């Protein structure tokens, strides 16, 4: 407990030192204030934009796309993993193709998504899904393969039917990796959606970033970044909490 407090204090100190140095650099003119922004300013901007409803409204729009993309990507990835575990031939067939698609920089697909879906919600979701799906799929497949061979041998020696082996052994074995994939996938879904907003516009937080940047307002950009950091941190913390309540036997896998 004491150690945790010391660590938390140390982190606050680190951020404070950084903020003060930043503030000093901006005020003294050592670095151009118009480019690097100024902590005292963008913290106030942040509060103001929260209070006047700009951030909450934009966050709801962004989070709606994030949520849909996250759920859709997760469901599709888990279904694919289910198929690939049930039919190993399908996995051997598809694995190199999936790896190649996963290696593709998904940002490059956004213009295509805009062409297909317009500049609304659909293309943001498509961008999020295109990342979330592959992240979770690769984690889930790695997790399914991490099943202890002794557990499978035990199941064989007990004549446990295949579907029960899947439900009672393979799925729990894969759960820690699935959660790691969900946590990482959550962050990447936000990335996918924000990028789509940066490129296509709209009313989300990503659009605000590009708006403030285009109007030479670094403080506005930093205020929006604070909002984004708080949102993604809250989302992953929520994921970790769910994980701890379900996969109690396993320490979370770091991602």
């Amino acid at each position, binding site marked *: 407990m004491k150690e945790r407090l010391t660590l938390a204090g140390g982190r606050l100190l680190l951020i404070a030192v950084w903020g003060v140095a930043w503030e000093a650099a901006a005020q003294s003119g050592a670095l151009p204030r118009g480019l690097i922004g100024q902590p005292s300013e963008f913290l106030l901007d942040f509060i103001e934009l929260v209070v006047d409803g700009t951030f909450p409204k934009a966050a709801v729009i962004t989070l709606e796309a994030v949520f849909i993309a996250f759920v859709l990507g997760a469901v599709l990835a888990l279904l694919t993993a289910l198929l690939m575990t049930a039919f190993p031939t399908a996995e051997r067939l598809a694995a190199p193709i999936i790896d190649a698609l996963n290696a593709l920089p998904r940002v490059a697909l956004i213009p295509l998504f805009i062409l297909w879906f317009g500049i609304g919600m659909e293309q943001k979701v498509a961008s999020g899904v295109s990342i979330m799906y592959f992240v979770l799929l690769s984690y889930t497949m790695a997790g399914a393969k991490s099943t202890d061979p002794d557990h499978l041998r035990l199941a064989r020696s*007990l004549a446990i039917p295949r579907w029960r082996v899947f439900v009672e052994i393979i799925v729990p074995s894969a759960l820690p990796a699935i959660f790691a994939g969900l946590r990482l996938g959550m962050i990447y879904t936000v990335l996918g959606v924000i990028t789509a907003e940066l490129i296509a516009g709209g009313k989300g937080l990503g659009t605000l970033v590009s708006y403030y940047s285009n109007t030479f307002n670094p403080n506005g950009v930093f205020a929006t970044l604070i909002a984004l950091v708080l949102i993604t941190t809250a989302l992953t913390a929520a994921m970790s909490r769910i994980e701890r309540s379900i*996969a109690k036997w396993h320490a979370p896998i770091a991602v």
Partner: protein
Amino acid sequence: MGSESAPEGIDIRGLSHAYGRGDESVEALSNLNLEIPAGQFVSLVGASGCGKTTLLDILSGLLNVQTGAVRLAGRPPRAGRRDTARMFARDALMPWKSAFGNVDFALATRIGDAAERTPQVEQLLKSVGLGDFKHALPAELSQGMRQRVALARTFSLRSRFVMLDEPFGALDALTKINLQDQLVELWEQVSASTVVLVTHDLAEAAALSDRVIVMSPRPGRIVADVPIDLPRPRNVRALHATDGFQKLVAGLWETLDAAS
């Protein structure tokens, strides 16, 4: 099948087994013949590479018979035979199931009614000294306690044939002797099965078995078949203190040395 001399036990005739193909194949077992009468506790000992785990895998049906004939109570081995139980070298407990859940998982393959199983599982956990730990997850138990759960799981099946693969290999000396006593007790009281134990601990083999089979490595062959005429019921800890037991173990060492 009238010619078999161990009709209710284990009968192994001319068993050979090789891994790999062609020039790279390694012969793990060579022309093995062994009869184990029903109810006997037999240990397989030998240096690593003598094929003792291969033999155990074949008896459990986890490996197919390549050459020769193997019969358990007159029938060929098969994974999932209801009269066979297998215990693995590492505990193979499922970390997401409690001690109770791990034993129950196995027993559920024999008894469908959960209400009927529960008192049996609880009794078994109590008999291995884990009555207060039924809700504990494997990660919350010591290695010795986990092996106790694995023992309870194995013997919960009350199988005619029990295959044990170095169940106490990873334990410290004291815990090991305690668990050996636990095993003897389970075997003598819960189910008087035919047991095949693979071990490289000669004292363990002598203390637990009716008979010790000494094998030589590459390819695995039986080089000695040593009867252990110690009275039962046995107490492993007390046995260790006797001269006769120490001589017996020393004799096994000599046999093993001569074999390798």
